[in-house]
């Protein structure tokens, strides 16, 4: 039990993610989280605005159940499987973040500077959260996949489009982390 309660190392988590991909293949489906964004838009009536969303979302109901499971998995882990939220990040990372104005980096999963109720209800904080989401939603559908569909399945299938997308993920991530975050914070 103690092992389950500790943070899981990469060599446990990585193979388990492959197991998730295996289970979905085994049941005849393809792992991909971001297509749920389109399904949820379609359910919400986005077909009235953009014709694309007039597809029959019921064919994706397996993936919606998957994403509901993901929410439940988060809840279970939070309630019973995470005695400590301390994330053991590199001390250099903590120092770099402190220079950006992030206090107590790694003391919990999410920084208060972005995710606290106070930050959420400030104009700047609200915009950071909204824009971050919009970039992820727009980019993942433009590229046709996110970390799961391109990063895990596409790369495992040795697909060139996925390699391009993952290189793109990193270019964008590096620009944000090294150039834009120091401007924003």
């Amino acid at each position: 039990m103690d092992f389950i309660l500790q943070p899981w190392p990469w060599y446990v988590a990585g193979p388990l993610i492959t197991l998730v991909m295996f289970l979905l293949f085994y049941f005849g489906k393809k792992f991909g989280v971001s297509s749920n964004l389109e399904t949820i838009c379609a359910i919400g009536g986005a077909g009235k605005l953009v014709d694309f969303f007039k597809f029959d979302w019921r064919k994706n109901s397996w993936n919606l159940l998957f994403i509901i499971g993901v929410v439940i998995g988060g809840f279970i882990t939070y309630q019973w499987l995470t005695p400590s939220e301390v994330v053991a990040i590199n001390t250099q990372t903590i120092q770099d973040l402190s220079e950006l104005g992030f206090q107590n980096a790694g003391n919990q999963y999410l920084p208060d500077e972005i995710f606290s109720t106070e930050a959420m209800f400030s104009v700047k904080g609200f915009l950071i959260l909204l824009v971050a989401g919009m970039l992820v939603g727009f980019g993942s559908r433009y590229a046709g996949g996110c970390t799961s569909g391109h990063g895990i399945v596409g790369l495992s299938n040795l697909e060139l489009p996925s390699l391009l997308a993952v290189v793109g993920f990193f270019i964008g991530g590096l620009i944000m982390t090294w150039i834009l975050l120091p401007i924003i914070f």
Partner: protein
Amino acid sequence: MKNIKFLFVGILFGIILSKAEVISWYRIYEMFKFQSFHMYGVIGSAVALGVILVYFFKKGIIKTYFGTQIAIDPKKKGFARNMLGGIIFGLGWALGGACPGPMFILLGRGAVAIIIVIIGALLGALLYHAAKSKLPH
């Protein structure tokens, strides 16, 4: 209710990413700063094993539950869509510290602010399909 199994696979995925701290904003920042092997190890080992798994599936050595051989639809080709879409995604991933899966895990953990990120992601998907005829692919 034959689809109920996918709920359980989702629960498993939610627990794995949560326990591996992949859902932590700090882990994403640390990854893009090249200050830890953790995230590279998670994604790298998943893909390394995934390559073998997909090979076995495509060769028909592993068959699906229905006894059929899987066909993986290839991703759409095109430099602009994959590179530009990827870069836009990466900007958001590093800013919000969450890709689509972790957004929903954080929702399950009761992180209220993630609701705004999820609404943003839905808006982003909507905007893409509204604008896609004008974009290079």
